């Protein structure tokens, strides 16, 4: 199971989480979600420290963090 789970259909691709991530674990997807946004995708599974900064800045509460 991954440390960061992103609800791709809730995400609006604002990229605030990508800016906030201290380990640069997130990128924007190349594909679109149901609403036509490019959602954030969790990529660097080993680098993530579960700090929760991406959850803190997410305006759509689309992120869940596990440790």
């Amino acid at each position, binding site marked *: 199971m991954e*440390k960061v789970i992103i609800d791709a259909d*809730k995400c*609006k691709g*604002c*990229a*605030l989480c990508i800016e*906030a991530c201290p380990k640069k674990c997130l990128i924007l997807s190349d594909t679109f979600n149901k609403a036509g946004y490019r959602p954030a995708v969790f990529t660097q599974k080993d680098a993530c420290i579960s700090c929760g900064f991406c959850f803190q800045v997410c*305006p759509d509460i689309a992120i869940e963090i*596990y440790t």
Partner: protein
Amino acid sequence: MKKIFSRPESLTPAPHLYCAGCGHGIIHRLVAESIDELGVREKTIAVAPVGCAVFAYDYFNFDVTEAPHGRPPAVATGIKRVLPDRIVFTYQGDGDIAAIGTAETIHAANRGENITVIFVNNANYGMTGGQMAPTTLIGQKTATTPFGRDAKRDGYPLHLCELLATLKGVAYLERVTVYNPKHIFNAKRAIKKAFQNQIDGKGFSLVEVISQCPVDWGMTPLDSVAWVKDVFIKEFPLGVFKDI
């Protein structure tokens, strides 16, 4: 694996209708987390404004009522006086609290009503398409000030916290922002304190949250948080204005 951060119980799973990058979603979560942590969800009543947060009843998982434009402090006064054991708070934007609702806000504060006010300041009228609000900065371009706000024609930005700090009935005033995680943690502390004050019966508590409005400012979400940091909070300095 253990879940450490997820949607608080006081928020419903409904997707937000706010624009991408809007600060409202963050502030909703901070309010919901504070209420969960204080264990008062079952006896909380929110008063929603007219403005972007008008659909707050869809997002909050507790009782929410709606007030006419600018009048949430008056409606909250009535609810709190009839049901004094409930936790009553208003959630308002700058067009609501600082323009059409100035009188209700000032008198509720001056009476020292034991309510909590969450004031979201994004320097324009968001819902109607980004017109000039009393809090719009000098020189800021909006739909109704296309060449920037001119003090001679449009007046100066209204600083509500500084204005209310002179009133004896006010217990707590703080201005915070939500443009990065550090400030979000600080905003959470301030919002929780404003609710704790109400539980302790201290009186009128208001937290002003400086928030980004990317679409109406004509910026990307990342540019809008940079503008909050570099320009907005220079005009509206953060800090505690009153705490008794």
